[in-house]
């Protein structure tokens, strides 16, 4: 995948490039997009998740992760681990079976596909004859039983997938033994469930979809018992001792059946409709778990009253008098219970319930009173509110790290203290070299702090900016407040909530200073918040200022959203980052750029109208600069196109419906649930897309002009201590780059520390550079006398960087979407340039300075530009000579949101969204690699015991 570019006078040769650079996509963080199947091995203590795109992911202890991809990219329908093996079988929606195994290779385990197989019927048979509906891996590990739509059960040998035709359990054979009048041929259509007897491996329970259940003896090939259910069957579950089993049905009922040797056709012990008497939805899966105290856990999915709660995605847990219906915000894909897997144990004693919903993984602690949720160490739902921006900070000082963790732990008190129950495998990856934070901004006005140091992207702390503002939604409105005698006893679980009550709260830009703990956050309605880390709860007034970016420009009317209303008086903030200053831009357009200088205590912000500088020490606006072109009406009216605003209004109306539903929960007969909303949204998107496709695709070729729309859009802001006026004195400066190719430089006068509160900060425009190609300026950088990028604020003060060279002359690097240009300072003359678009047809989307260390030696490293283009390529460009070193294809060019979401780290790694819920992590540096490396070993001792006990049971059974 490497693309080498021959560059004359290249300072690096290709060997050096190999030492410094290589592109690796290392690990996917977050929650798999569109999960479709779940599997669990109590033996390996590993969980497997399959997706609609054919991916299969295995998770164990934190850091233990495997990923495989089916070549066909078909939906994974079922996942079954082979008992007591490091193997699993997947069933895809093209009816193919795939055997995967975990094998050790080079000191670490790898997931590999071993075999694939498609069941073939006799010639001329309909496809339904071999359409697999149920899979049972037998405990002997030698065969798979495959139930089909036709009612026949085929037996295939493992691992070869050879069909053992003489062992096929045909529906005719079953019917012959069930000599009953009310059984006909159709009773044996479609095998719904196959379950092996927990004590006797020679017996399997076969459930047909029309309600007939038979217990089949594999040794003698006969039906030993049959059970006549009156309702359509959904699923079966054996009680641990094998004396009873339970069946669940389409009408929302479940039935317990006894299995005794004397009665060949037992009657049900119990038939219950838990949420009756009104018609209920199907119970699609059920567990009956025994405990020492005798009270069983009955856990089932679905079964809600059809009319009023038919739209809920619920799993109910009943234990004695306790009953809770866990209510999920997205569809439940599947779930499993973690219980005692020791064969010798007498009771199940369930410890946790693991639920895979469409948008998140929820684990419930069944041992602790109140059944609290367990905080998952991985599979975080990044998209619980849509991600609007991300910001990465490398190498966090320990002190700040600990304070963030401690603030986060105060938020997580409602979680269970249970250790993570899925703990198979061993993580053998080296400890991460440093502490890295990934901050994600969300549509609902929150900022989430993720531990991005290692393989597990783990939520450390969540910050909400909502409290500062007055919004329609009352933040204290708790959806979980339930009346005493509410029935069914629903309890909302999970964090996935894609509905933002006010899109203006959305976070657009984040800047964290890791040395001072200052955080600046800017949002959709022109709000800029400066925050400070406080370890205690506090109540204080947030200072409020307004920045009129249009200044004296008259006659304009902003047609976009209104600014956010602020709360009067003191506001209570929990421990963590607490805002102390709010600047609101006027007009309240989206903040498009943000920079914070923690040493000078200044924050700069820009919108489509201009930019401003705020002194957060004195809480005073230093200056504003309007960059708007007088004829640019579009920028004034607000950036929303007609289509977009239509879509928005549609979404808002659904939001309103939903809100009213929440507030009047007791009202019966709901409509417009979440999935319907999503469907409607999807349909609307599709319609508008089709509409767009009808128009002929043509592109206007026109030179950019100063009159174009959004030329005043401020794309980048940069603080630098450099030589702006003359080469003898350097001074603080603020640089801004616009969409129209203009760079502004302001000379700043920041009073010395002892008079910092007494004298005002002054600013004066010193330079304005207009790039003739007028492409948007996406990056500004000053290089010191050694051609090294200037250090971050406070970096030198903390002894983490050499102080910049102020002797030699500084250079200014301006990166536009089309070109890279180096100018001299203080007198601006052009020194170097690199044209990208004119020669390659690609544009710069993201650019950052990355430090590359050699994988061979520790003491050498080099700064280069890491560039992501609109075609999804990553290019490395040397500094200060602007030579293209190497190009890697990284993201598909059609994946516009992936490219837009990309964030580079300071040490040559990066993240981008591969779906709304997943970050792909990649590494350009050969020195820093974060990838899963783990071992899954067969727990040998247990295996022997298990087999032993099994065979003992077998022997006993034979004797009897």
């Amino acid at each position, binding site marked *: 995948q490497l693309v080498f570019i021959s560059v004359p006078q290249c300072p690096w040769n290709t060997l050096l490039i190999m030492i410094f650079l290589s592109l690796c996509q290392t690990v996917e963080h977050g929650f798999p997009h569109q999960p479709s199947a779940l599997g669990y091995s109590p033996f390996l203590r590993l969980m497997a998740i399959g997706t609609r795109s054919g991916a299969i992911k295995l998770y164990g202890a934190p850091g233990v992760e495997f990923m495989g991809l089916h070549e066909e990219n078909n939906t994974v329908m079922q996942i079954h681990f082979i008992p007591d093996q490091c193997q699993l079988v997947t069933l895809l929606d093209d009816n193919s079976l795939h055997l995967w195994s975990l094998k050790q290779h080079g000191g670490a385990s790898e997931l590999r596909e071993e075999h694939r197989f498609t069941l073939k019927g006799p010639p001329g048979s309909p496809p339904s004859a071999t359409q697999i509906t149920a899979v049972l891996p037998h405990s002997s590990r030698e065969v798979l039983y495959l139930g089909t739509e036709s009612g026949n059960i085929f037996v295939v040998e493992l691992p070869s997938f050879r069909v053992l035709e003489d062992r096929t359990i045909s529906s005719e054979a079953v019917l012959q033994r069930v000599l009953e009048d009310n059984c006909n041929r159709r009773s044996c259509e479609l095998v719904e469930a196959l379950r092996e007897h927990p004590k006797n491996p020679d017996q399997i329970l076969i459930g047909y979809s029309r309600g007939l259940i038979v217990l089949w003896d594999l040794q003698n090939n006969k039906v030993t018992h049959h059970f006549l259910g009156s309702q359509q069957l959904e699923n079966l579950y054996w009680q641990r001792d094998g004396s009873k089993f339970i069946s669940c049905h389409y009408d929302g009922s479940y039935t317990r059946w006894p299995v005794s040797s004397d009665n060949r056709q037992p009657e049900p012990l119990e038939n219950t409709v838990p949420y009756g008497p009104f018609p209920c939805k199907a119970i699609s899966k059920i567990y009956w778990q025994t405990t020492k105290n005798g009270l069983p856990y009955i856990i089932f999915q679905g079964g809600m009253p059809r009319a009023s709660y038919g739209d809920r995605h619920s799993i109910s847990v009943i234990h004695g008098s306790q009953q809770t219906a866990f209510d999920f915000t997205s569809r439940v894909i599947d779930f499993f219970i973690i219980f005692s897997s020791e064969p010798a144990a007498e009771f199940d004693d369930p410890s946790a319930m693991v639920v895979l919903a469409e948008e998140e993984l929820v684990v419930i602690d069944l041992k602790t009173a109140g059944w609290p949720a367990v905080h998952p160490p991985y599979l975080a739902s990044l998209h619980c509110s849509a991600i609007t921006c991300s910001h990465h900070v490398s190498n966090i000082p320990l002190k700040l790290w600990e304070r963030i963790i401690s603030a986060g732990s105060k938020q997580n008190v409602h979680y269970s203290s249970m250790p993570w129950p899925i703990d198979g495998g061993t993580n053998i990856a080296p400890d991460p070299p440093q502490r890295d934070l990934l901050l994600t901004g969300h549509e609902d006005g929150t900022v989430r702090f993720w531990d991005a140091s290692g393989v597990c992207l783990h939520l450390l702390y969540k910050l909400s900016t909502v409290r500062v503002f007055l919004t329609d939604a009352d933040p204290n409105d708790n959806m979980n407040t339930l009346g005493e005698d509410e029935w069914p006893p629903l309890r909302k679980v999970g964090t996935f909530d894609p509905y933002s009550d006010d899109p203006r709260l959305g976070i657009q830009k984040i800047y964290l200073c890791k040395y001072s703990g200052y955080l600046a956050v800017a949002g959709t309605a022109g709000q800029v918040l400066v925050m400070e880390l406080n370890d205690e709860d506090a109540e204080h007034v947030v200072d409020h200022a307004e920045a009129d970016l249009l200044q004296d420009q008259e006659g304009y009317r902003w047609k976009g959203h209104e600014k956010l209303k602020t709360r009067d008086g003191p506001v209570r903030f929990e421990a963590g980052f607490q805002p102390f200053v709010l600047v609101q831009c006027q007009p309240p357009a989206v903040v498009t750029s943000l920079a914070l200088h923690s040493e000078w205590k200044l924050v700069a912000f820009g919108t489509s109208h201009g930019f401003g500088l705020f002194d957060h020490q004195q809480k005073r606006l230093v200056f504003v600069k309007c960059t708007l072109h007088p004829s640019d009406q579009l920028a004034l009216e607000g950036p929303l196109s007609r289509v977009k605003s239509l879509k928005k209004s549609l979404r808002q109306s659904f939001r309103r419906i939903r809100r009213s539903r929440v507030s009047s929960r007791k009202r019966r007969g709901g409509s417009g649930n979440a999935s319907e909303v999503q469907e409607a949204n999807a349909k609307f998107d599709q319609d508008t897309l089709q509409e767009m496709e009808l128009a002929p695709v043509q*592109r206007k070729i*026109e030179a950019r002009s*100063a009159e174009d729309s959004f030329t005043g859009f401020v794309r980048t802001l940069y603080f630098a201590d450099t030589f702006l006026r003359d080469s003898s004195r350097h001074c603080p400066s603020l640089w801004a780059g616009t969409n129209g190719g203009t760079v502004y430089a302001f000379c700043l006068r920041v009073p010395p520390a002892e008079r910092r509160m007494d004298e005002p900060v002054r600013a004066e425009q010193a330079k*304005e550079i207009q790039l003739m*190609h007028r492409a948007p300026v996406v990056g500004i950088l000053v290089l010191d006398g050694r051609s090294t990028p200037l250090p971050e604020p406070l970096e030198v003060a903390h002894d983490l960087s050499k102080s910049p060279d102020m002797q030699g002359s500084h250079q200014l690097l301006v990166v536009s979407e089309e070109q890279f240009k180096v100018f001299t300072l203080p007198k601006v003359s052009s020194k170097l340039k690199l044209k990208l678009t004119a020669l*390659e*047809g690609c544009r710069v989307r993201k650019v950052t300075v990355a430090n590359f260390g050699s994988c061979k030696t520790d003491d050498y490293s080099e700064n280069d530009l890491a560039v992501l283009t609109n075609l999804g390529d990553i290019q490395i460009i040397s500094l200060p000579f602007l030579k293209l070193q190497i190009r890697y294809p990284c993201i598909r060019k059609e994946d516009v949101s992936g490219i837009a979401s990309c964030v580079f780290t300071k040490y040559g790694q990066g993240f981008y969204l591969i779906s709304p819920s997943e970050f792909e992590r990649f590494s350009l540096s050969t020195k820093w690699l974060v990838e899963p490396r783990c071992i899954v070993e067969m727990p040998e001792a247990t295996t022997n015991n298990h087999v032993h006990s099994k065979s003992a049971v077998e022997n006993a059974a034979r004797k009897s």
Partner: protein
Amino acid sequence: EFRRFSLERSKPGKFEEFYGLLQHVHKIPNVDVLVGYTDVHGDLLPINNDDNYHKAVSTANPLLRIFIQRKEDADYSAFGTDTMTRKKNVLSNVLRPDNHKKKPHIVISMPQDFRPVSSIIDVDILPETHRRVRLYKYGTDKPLGFYIRDGSSVRVTPHGLEKVPGIFISRLVPGGLAQSTGLLAVNDEVLEVNGIEVSGKSLDQVTDMMIANSRNLIITVRPANQRNNVVRNSRTSGSSGQSTESSLPSSTPNLLGSLLQGEEESDEEDIIIEDSGEPQQIPKAAPTSESIESLSQIELLHESTQNGFLPSSEMNSNHSAGSISMEYDVPDPGRKSLEEDGTIITL
């Protein structure tokens, strides 16, 4: 007034000297004049440089008739009678939609007074079916004025005819540069942009490349209408730059690249405004070849004036190109000619 004097045919000297001589014999030392002569066909042709001066002298048979007009009241249209009548209709229709006004004066003078807006280049190295068109966007207010689309074209490959995706011109904006040159037409297939092949590139990529090169755009097309192609080995064609060679490599991007190197540097110079002062071009840090520098300076001044790069305080509503240029104090007398009305001539 008539004057008659003799010149040494074998050593006519320089145009400057000749011009001085004319001023001297007419006793008009400080009056700017236009100099013309009649050639064998009776056309009035200008004498304004060494080349056409030497040409004029060589055509003397034995007498050379020279006409001198005061510059300010010169009748420009008298020059090149035949050529002018042929071209006039096209030009005046295209360039001056309001041609009910007084007949335009087209100045034929020193080369730097001309501003090319388009040209067909590299005719000698391209296959006959291709055309390489250069559009000079700088110095004109006209939009480039065309659209491109995806399409497919048929290529001859070793496996026979094959349909391959291509990029085509889909629309010309009336009054735009592309339309006014008459060199590009709807459904022309775009093969290269500034020497870089477009095959394998998406419509958006090609769009970006064209816009990035918009100040000096060179498009190689396969015209949809092949009848108007340059016919080689014939001197009757009206196109310039034709060549008698007919078999040459089909595409030579390297040649084009080297051709562009010098000019490319000049095609875009950024502007710096220091301390809210006057906008100035950003100079090069390292000195480059002087000839290119001086050439580019002139083009650049046009860029800056025509595109209205002024401090925003001076930006009123509708500057005409001329009024802006008047605000510039051009120190070098050699550049005075920049203050012309910006008439556009297709070379």
